[in-house]
């Protein structure tokens, strides 16, 4: 199947996986392996000095996965930029998933602060993957400032509601010159397959895998769904039948030629 290309780097897998909400590092590591993913997101938080848990980074084999730090927790551009810089110092990686979420209830991304931060981070030579609401204009503006992808949400983080933003996603996919990675709210493998059939370049899944009864099996299900969806898309499916309502002939006048 065709490869995913982001910032001149090729990937076989079109499933990105998040590492939050897993019951344990071991389960997380197994699920990542089964998912076949090549890009894994992580977040940054203050160390809990009173009670430090094991560092989960050690459970992620960095020779196998590209670590993609996110700036979750940032409520404005400055905080996001700071987190991105910290992540870069810590890992040497200049890829960042830009998340600016001032709203603590739905964790919806702030479009204005995201665009602001994206522009600055691109200038600092980061490979920026911005998380946004499914806003086609914002997508084009981010592309204009040089982000490597756009990551529109399907529905709010953790809601598992699937492609609530379908109509807007279709427009983004049609108009985008950079890869479109549908992120957030994909609750079932069928949602992921659906997104891929629509023409998305990749999807990111976290909650649906981490909180399943059997995360490893769910990871495998998502892997298969993403592959199936992509294969279907590139095979050129026949569209849903649209019956044109019969009206009087429009080209009859040509018969006399």
């Amino acid at each position, binding site marked *: 199947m065709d490869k995913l290309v982001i910032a001149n780097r090729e990937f076989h897998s079109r499933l990105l996986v998040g590492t939050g909400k897993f019951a344990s590092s071991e389960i997380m590591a197994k699920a990542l392996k089964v998912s076949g993913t090549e890009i894994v997101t992580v977040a940054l938080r203050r*160390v809990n000095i009173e009670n430090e848990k094991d560092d989960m980074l050690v459970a992620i084999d960095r020779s196998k996965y590209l670590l993609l730090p996110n700036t979750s927790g940032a409520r404005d551009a400055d905080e996001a930029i700071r987190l991105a810089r910290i992540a870069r110092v810590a890992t040497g990686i200049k890829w960042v998933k830009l998340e600016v979420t001032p709203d603590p209830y739905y964790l919806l991304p702030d479009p204005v602060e995201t665009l602001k931060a994206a522009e600055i981070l691109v200038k600092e030579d980061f490979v920026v993957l911005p998380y946004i609401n499914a806003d086609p204009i914002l997508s084009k503006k981010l592309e204009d400032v040089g982000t490597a992808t756009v990551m529109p949400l399907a529905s709010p983080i953790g809601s598992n509601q699937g492609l609530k933003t379908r109509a807007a996603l279709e427009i983004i996919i049609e108009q985008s010159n950079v890869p479109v990675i549908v992120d957030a709210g994909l609750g079932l493998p069928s949602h992921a397959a659906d997104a891929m059939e629509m023409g998305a370049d990749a999807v990111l899944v976290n909650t649906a895998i981490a909180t399943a009864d059997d995360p490893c099996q769910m990871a495998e299900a998502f892997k298969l769904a993403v592959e199936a969806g992509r294969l279907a898309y590139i095979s050129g499916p026949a569209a849903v039948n649209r019956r044109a309502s019969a009206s009087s002939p429009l080209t009859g006048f040509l018969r006399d030629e």
Partner: protein
Amino acid sequence: MEVLRINGVEKQFPEGQLPSTVAKLLEQLGVKPATVVAEIDGQIIEREKFAQTLLRKGQSIELIRFVGGG
């Protein structure tokens, strides 16, 4: 008493017992240096410099590490 603000919380040290470097602070707190990023008064400190970076009273220190996230 000498004070350092660590992760938003003020921590008091008896006079003269302030950890002299970042590395020493981490050792005292029982935090593995390999897993954290340190920020002093907003400046990011690289891990290689932990042993050389001196601490002064009144500074604000952020210790950050990677956790699971989407």
